[in-house]
């Protein structure tokens, strides 16, 4: 575990040792929400890099700005101030349609509440993505990766929470995204199911080389990561490198 220095972007020390190219470079990210008369500072100038193929876990108390950070990185939201570069390209200068294009081609999202389209089957939910991306896998292939081939014609309401989340992961990875961003993917799941879901994410990271960021409240999940970012009060308070990633199936909590 290395200590965090506030004037250096989190992860620079990793860059010094391994030096893989940075996928994301965020500098001075600030996000302020105006609610009535009060300003909520969700992010207060975050500097962070994410590197190719890396598995990062974001930890932090509720309200610390994890989701906000992830949403900004994924082009779902824009910062109030600061800059995000994606392979050197400044995302903060992009307009809505450019951000859409960015998400469409490069980002896979997994949300805490799965956010499957309830009126579409598992297969169709994945097709939703494969139909609009340039080099997707076949939907069946994606389902295969999350071990749900036999459930392809089931509607979300006919799937358990864990299965829905695996479909969501299949949907996210089907386009072979550069980055996979997961916001509390196991938040609503029990241990066993959570592990199955994490295995799916882990597999995508390993087999497709997808840069992966996972938000969680569960410190044990952090064992899976290459790097753990701790957020608190809208700032990265700590960065931890794991010398060894523990496979999801070996996690115990």
């Amino acid at each position, binding site marked *: 575990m290395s200590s965090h220095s506030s004037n250096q972007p989190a992860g620079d020390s990793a860059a010094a040792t391994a030096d893989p190219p940075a996928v994301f470079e965020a500098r001075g990210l600030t996000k302020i929400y105006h609610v009535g008369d009060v300003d909520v500072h969700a992010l207060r100038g975050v500097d962070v890099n994410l590197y190719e193929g890396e598995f990062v876990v974001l930890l932090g108390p509720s309200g610390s700005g994890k*989701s*906000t950070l992830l*949403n900004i990185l*994924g082009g*779902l*939201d824009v910062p109030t101030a600061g800059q995000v570069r994606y392979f050197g390209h400044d995302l903060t200068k992009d307009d*809505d*349609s450019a951000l*859409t*294009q960015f*998400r*469409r*081609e490069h*980002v*896979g*999202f997994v*949300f805490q*509440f799965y*956010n*499957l*389209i*309830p*009126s*579409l089957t598992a297969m*169709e*939910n994945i*097709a*939703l*993505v494969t*139909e*609009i*991306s340039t080099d997707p896998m076949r939907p069946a292939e994606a389902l295969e990766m999350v071990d749900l081939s036999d459930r392809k014609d089931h509607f979300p*309401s006919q799937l358990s929470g864990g299965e829905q989340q695996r479909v969501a992961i299949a*949907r*996210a990875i089907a*386009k072979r995204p550069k980055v996979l961003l997961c*916001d509390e993917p196991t938040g609503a799941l029990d241990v066993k199911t959570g592990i199955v879901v994490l295995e799916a994410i882990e597999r995508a990271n390993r087999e497709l080389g997808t840069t992966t960021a996972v938000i969680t409240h569960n410190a044990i999940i952090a064992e899976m990561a290459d790097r753990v970012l701790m957020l608190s009060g809208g700032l990265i308070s700590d960065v931890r490198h794991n010398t060894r990633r523990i496979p999801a199936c070996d996690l115990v909590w």
Partner: protein
Amino acid sequence: MSALNRKMLRDLLHMKGQALAICLVMACGIAIFVMALSMVDSLQRTLDTYYDHHRFAEVFAHLKRAPNSLARRIAEIPGVSQMQTRIVQQVTLDVQGMAEPAEGRLISLPDQHVGGLNALYLRRGRFIEPGSGREVVVSESFADAHRLGPGDSVTAVLNGRRQELRIVGVVLSPEYIYQIRPGDLLPDNRRFGVFWIAYDELAAAFDMQGAFNDVSLSLMSDASEPQVLRRLDELTEAYGGLGSYLRDDQLSHKFVTNEIKEMRATAVMVPTIFLAVAAFLLNVVISRLINMQREQIAALKGIGYSSREIGWHYMKLILAITLIAVALGTTVGAWMGSMLTELYTQFFQFPVFEYGLDMWIVVMALVVSTASAVVGTLGAVWRAMRLPPAQAMRPEAPEVYRATILERGGLQRFLSPAMRMIVRYLERRPVKSLLTCAGIALATSILVLGNYMEDAIDYAMDFEFQRVQRYDLSVSLVESASSAAMSQIRHLPGVTHCEPFRALSVRVRSAHRARRVGIMGLDSQGELYRVIDMNGDVIPLPRRGLVLSRKLGELLAVGPGDTVTVEVLQETRPVREVPVSGLVEDFSGMSAYMDIRAVNRLMREGNRVTGAFISADPDRMDSLYRELKDLPLVAGVTAKAAALESFRNTIAQSMLVMKTINVIFAVIIAFGVVYNSARISLSERSRELATLRVIGFTRVEISLIQLGELAVLTLISIPAGLLLGYGWAALTTSAYDTELFRIPLVVDRSTYAFAATVVMIAALFSGLVVRRMLDRLDLVAVLKTNE
């Protein structure tokens, strides 16, 4: 099919009840739109071709008698392109199988009639041959009403002599598309027929050799109509000219164009209402759908769908509903159009009346309904497009509730918790509640409007036929006669009572405003024809002075106390200043009433009459008719009962059709609005209701809350709707306030009751649907969904 389209279709299927309701409302508007426009289009096209091919004249004039030498001078009027002079005579007909006499109009046909104005269309048989005796061709409507055809004959009283008229052909004329006896409102094909006969025959029978009494002109394109009219009047004045007029005042043309005008108004008014309601319903339903799908929208955006794609996705849903509605509405509209064509052929006689639905009308329907649907939903779709995906991921903040005005007023003591929930819910969404109320009220009002026409016409019928006209027969004489003629009529068998009248063709003038009307001179003490006001009080006819139809007064801008100039168009053609003593509300045409003695004084004549009202012994009708048919001085007999019956037959049928359509449509609106608002509020509150169920409320209790809201909204809206309905009726009354017809503003209590009942049934039905849904409310599913 793409996954997103599949989602759209499944969404549509999921909301099929609501989509169907909206579709139906929209389809109603489109159906009326398509029906009315295609009708206007078909009528106008048919009319134009007919007029063109048969050279329908543009200027008309009647006179007493003029020598043929005048014709040349008329033809020389600058601007006149073609001229036709004729003899037109009114005769009494004796038709086999009909006790009462019918009225015939005999029109002379020149030997060389090819290429002339007002050409006839030969339906069956042949045209008359010159010098072949009393051959006639007869108008198709009369022929059909009596099953007459070539080879048959009718008896006519020509100038006092009974004569056989041999029918050789059945024809149609552009002058009699709407074949109606002057003064009537609806055609009576059994009792009024038009015949064309060789000029020489007619001239001989009426001592009119070398003369004519009717002129028609067509004009050159650069002709000045007023100048031609003025010149024609000057030329005919000395020969008893009754004043010339243009097509616009030609009776048949006036009725046909009036119909077109009304159809055109219908094509705008009714669809506007229906499409507006449909747009409102769409807005509510789509807004709700988009609200419910916030997180789906966020996810779609998250995985790379653009705002435009999302917007288009929802637009497609809206367009799908619209398209189904247009298909349905166009089909129904075309069907109604062909039905109406059927109905029209009873009123309008065309050689061919082909109903056609032009493509541009369908395109227009599509454009108009799409535009209204898009306008109605643009806001909601725009919100979906603008939805920031990151925020949509977060559950919506709990709704802000506060104590309501009612409660702040200290009334909470009187409200049960359930009632409080209802009131708070309604107050929290004032706009939505208001719009729902507006929708229900609108439906109620359309129901009122649907039945109002019948009420009004019933009233007008009762008024005219029971209270104003109380005679059994009205007899008109060939010429004005002395009181000796009266006593002759009075002593006919079966006559129990008899009152004279004197009708006078005049032009009433006030400053630059003028109208041709008939003055009806009545016995001021008479019982058989009374001038009465809306309250049923008799308006006394003064010693001098005219009582005018209210509409006539308005058109001349005169009222009681003013003086008008009366130019008599008959006999000695005196011009007199006459005071207006009152206005009276009547429902058809425009009339002027006067004491018969005042009429005679105005003409500087003694006791002259032009007709009589008779009440007769019903058992001796047949013999009375027989006598009347043979009286030389009788020009026509109108039996009130027959007129009433024919009126009922024709109007009742078309009114029943219109009313049925109206009621069906209004019911659809009522159900559409009520059902949708019930469904929406259920879906908005299913979580809340499920929670209540979980904490121990019974089904009945939550149903009460849910249905209570519907009940409150319905009960508030119905009175407003009834009032609005009265407003529509008033609007209709003023829209129909024409020279031809007027309808009284009377709405029957049963109409209000009917409207209220239908809306309540719609509410009840929707309530039952909601109730069933509540019973099946899947507590687990509702609470599980993260909404």
